[in-house]
């Protein structure tokens, strides 16, 4: 009997392997193999006529000694911090407000409004905002002209305003997605917790602080992590609107990668940038997971 059970377990395990095989192959060929190739390429240097040779850390040294690489990284971090902070806070406020609506129909309609920009392609969103931001004819400055100055802000054409302006586009696009995740988290919190807290005398903001936020933490972490990854990989909206300008003020890490790999024909430098980004994202993900694990324990 024991032998028969063992045989069945083995057979089930074998069947399980067949079930996951397509996904496994997909990941191996479309993720792990290119990742391995990028790692390998980062230790090579490009020669004319598509030839490459092993160069050790030479390409890493070349990339890391370029001021444009570090300024691109800094721009990306600033963009990400602005985007993530505002998106998560706004998404939290919006999702709690939507969750408090008792009329389901109205809640669904408003949720749709927030989700719609997420359905727009990033390139299209960037073009829409490029028109809105146009300093001379754009909708934004036209609206601000009631304050007297027809060019109150320069948006994408100003070195200091370009990153916040791009972050606004990103927030506009991403907010709906984050709202959706947080709203589903809020709706899964059992009402009994709130009832118990109310019996203990908790009310108003205390309920949110001690019940809602701790129980919503896994969703907040997921949203933060996804937004962070999305922010760090920002490319489309920058490419369509500014191409890294003015004067490299919005040059991001992915633009640095793209320009080197495809426009300067230096895939070796592109590979180094990809590896660097991978390491940063991995470190952040691990840190975030550990933080959540600890917080869960505290809750």
């Amino acid at each position: 009997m024991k032998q028969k059970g063992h045989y069945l377990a083995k057979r089930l395990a074998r069947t399980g392997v067949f079930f996951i095989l397509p996904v496994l192959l997909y990941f191996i060929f479309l993720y792990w193999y290119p990742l391995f190739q990028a790692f390998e390429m980062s230790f090579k240097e490009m020669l004319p006529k598509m030839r490459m040779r092993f160069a050790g850390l030479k390409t890493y040294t070349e990339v890391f000694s370029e001021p444009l690489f570090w300024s691109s990284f800094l721009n990306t971090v600033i963009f990400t911090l602005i985007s993530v902070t505002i998106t998560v806070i706004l998404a939290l406020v919006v999702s709690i407000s939507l969750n408090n609506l008792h009329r389901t129909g109205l809640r669904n309609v408003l949720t749709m409004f927030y989700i719609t920009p997420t359905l727009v392609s990033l390139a299209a969103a960037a073009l829409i905002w490029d028109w809105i931001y146009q300093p001379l004819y754009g909708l934004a400055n036209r609206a601000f002209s009631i304050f007297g100055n027809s060019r109150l802000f320069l948006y994408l054409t100003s070195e200091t305003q370009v990153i916040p302006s791009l972050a606004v586009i990103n927030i506009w696009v991403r907010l709906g997605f984050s709202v959706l995740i947080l709203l589903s988290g809020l709706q899964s919190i059992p009402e009994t917790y709130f009832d118990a807290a109310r019996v203990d005398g908790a009310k108003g903001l205390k309920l949110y602080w001690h019940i809602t936020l701790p129980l919503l933490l896994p969703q907040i972490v997921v949203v933060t992590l996804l937004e962070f990854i999305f922010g760090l990989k920002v490319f489309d909206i920058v490419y369509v609107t500014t191409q890294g300008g003015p004067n490299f003020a919005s040059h991001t890490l992915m633009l640095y990668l793209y320009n080197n790999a495809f426009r300067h024909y230096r895939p070796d430098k592109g590979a180094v940038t990809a590896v660097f980004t991978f390491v940063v994202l991995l470190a952040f993900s691990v840190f975030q997971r550990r933080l959540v694990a600890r917080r869960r324990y505290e809750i």
Partner: protein
Amino acid sequence: MKALKFGLAFLLMLTVAVSLGFTGGAQEEAEKAQVEVEHWTHWCPNNEVYEPFWETAAQKFNVEHPEADFKIKLNCVPYEGYEAKYSSAFEAGMGPGLFNGMTHVWVGQYDACDPMPADIAAKLDKILVGSAKPYGVANGKRYGVPVEGGNFMMLYYSVDLFKEAGLSPDKPPTTYTELLEYSKKMTKKDAAGNLVQIGFGVRYAGHPFGIADKAAPFFNAWGAEWMNWDKKKASGYINSPDGVEALQFYGDLVQKHQVSSLELGKPSAVLSQGLGGMIFRESWLVGWMAQNAPDINYRVAPLPRQKMESGFGNNFPWAINVGKHLTEVEKKWIWEFFRWYVNTPEIRKEHYVKSNMFPPFNDILDDPTFSARPDYGTWKTMGGGRAAPTYYIPPAHEVLTKVGEAVLDVMFGKSGAQAALDKAAKEIDAILAKY
């Protein structure tokens, strides 16, 4: 009996002969060469007719070559990002059959182009206008068919803004000093001090190699070169006193004199929206203006001079190239097609008349369509003048990027011309040292 045998034998022979005849016909049909090549181009937005015409030309070629069923399928690639598509495809050995690109880059970096058969190259060399001869060539060998005869910067100016500023449209600036004077007269600010109309439109956005390209005429007019490919050196060339003076003048248009803006848009937008008096662009802009800004009253003049003529020359010598990775049959028919194209002036004339483009061929220039173009006189004057230095080298994009970074630094007031060009010279030296 004998007659019957003879009759049967005759019938048999007839049947064999007829069936052989039919088989031969079917074989002939089967042997009709069927070749379809894809043509990748990022030029579709520049001109709505020029690239699609290749499909029509292939159909006309088939009429004269009934033994072939040759097709060209157009694939319009967005301008922004075309390099990524091309380079990925070539790296995978799956590039297009035909493609519009800069031959020196695709040969020098990717070895992606098939060399042109000698007879077609010889014919092209005979019929190409002088300024277009270097396009489509790499390492002294011809690969591609040049796209445009007026592929060099010219001065475009707004007649209306000239008149409004009290300037005569018949007397465009002939020196850069005059260009500055004229620009000052055409520049306008609003009450808050914002530039609302500028004298001269500079390129300040987009990839740095495009920014370098638009600054090139200034370096040329001051007699400065960016580098010496044979010596593999940029130091002493781009940062020479002439180079520094040229870039400082260019940067001063924005920072010191404020006759150029870093906000109003790219040069073509500035001219087409009536926001600027003068810009530099190539002859393709004539067709583009006809499509996008037909109400703007503009003229074209030769580039101003300073220490010398700016000269014709460019950084983006577009040419139609043939993929090296194709099969021998595909290559045979593509080159047969181009043999027919270069030897048929009527088809080339139709191509350029319909697309309102300036042809690179001297044997079809007699058509009044071309002499009536606003850039015809300028093309003649500049095309017959000095050849400005060109840098058709494998790492052209990387080198031009460094020049563009220096130009941006000065335009945005981040650095003086000397410091910016010293930095660029050092970086370009390091790039050139690899070759």
